[in-house]
């Protein structure tokens, strides 16, 4: 039996890698992928703790998180497509239409 702490530590490492990706990459698509990876690591935390304490609330929460992540990707990628049509770039440093 694998201790729950190992799962939590792995989820923490994956979350940190995802956050690092958001900070160092400038491509909007890669940043989206890293955000998905961070959401996934939090899901792993929730499921590991639901297993640890033997109730299903964590799993229900993960279910809702998966739905929200799917919506986020659909809308986010539509925004990326709209920006590419408008400015022909996916570099987030060049997307500064709202900057005064």
């Amino acid at each position, binding site marked *: 039996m694998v201790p729950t702490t190992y799962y939590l530590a792995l989820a923490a490492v994956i979350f940190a890698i995802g956050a690092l990706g958001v*900070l160092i*990459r400038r491509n909007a698509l890669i940043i989206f992928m890293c955000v998905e990876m961070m959401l996934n690591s939090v899901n792993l935390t929730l499921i590991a703790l639901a297993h640890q304490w033997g109730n299903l609330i964590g799993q229900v929460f993960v279910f809702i998180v998966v*739905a*929200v992540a*799917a*919506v986020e*990707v*659909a809308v986010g990628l539509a925004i990326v497509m709209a920006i590419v049509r408008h400015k022909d770039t996916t570099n987030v440093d060049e997307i500064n239409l709202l900057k005064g």
Partner: protein
Amino acid sequence: MSLLLFVLLALVALVGASGVILSRNAVHSALFLLLNFVVFAVFYIMLGAQLLGVVQVIVYAGAIVVLFLFVVMLIGGDIGPIRSGLRRYGRWAAVVSMAVFLLVMVLGLARSLPPDAPAATAPDAGSVQAVGEVLYTTYLLPFELASLLLLAGMIGGVVLARRYRSHTEE
């Protein structure tokens, strides 16, 4: 045996996660992301959440990664150097800050749980029947709100991705 499997899969998950942020081609990043998602599905099943393991494969690996690949196909996958817009030490600042963040998280985890706390669940606690019963009785309202959110997201995606003709005709 179970621990050995965990260590091997954890290494594969870490390779996938590193591949996402280090690849120069967006297609490679999406495929590394797929690897990461599939390993997480195996973790969910190891933790007794069979339904969520299957949902993970269908929704994340099936739908989300395919959506990413479609968008990469439409806008081109070659995305140039990794650090184009950062200042000279920006990347190292990001690495150091994430290392400190990770240290804080791991220290918090080490204090929050005893290292070998026994897991109390039955092996089929995350079956479709068990999760479905809770989801359709106690948590019915959040479930319906999630469906509303999916509808709103669908409409939003269609509206955003539509090509507006009026700009060219004016």
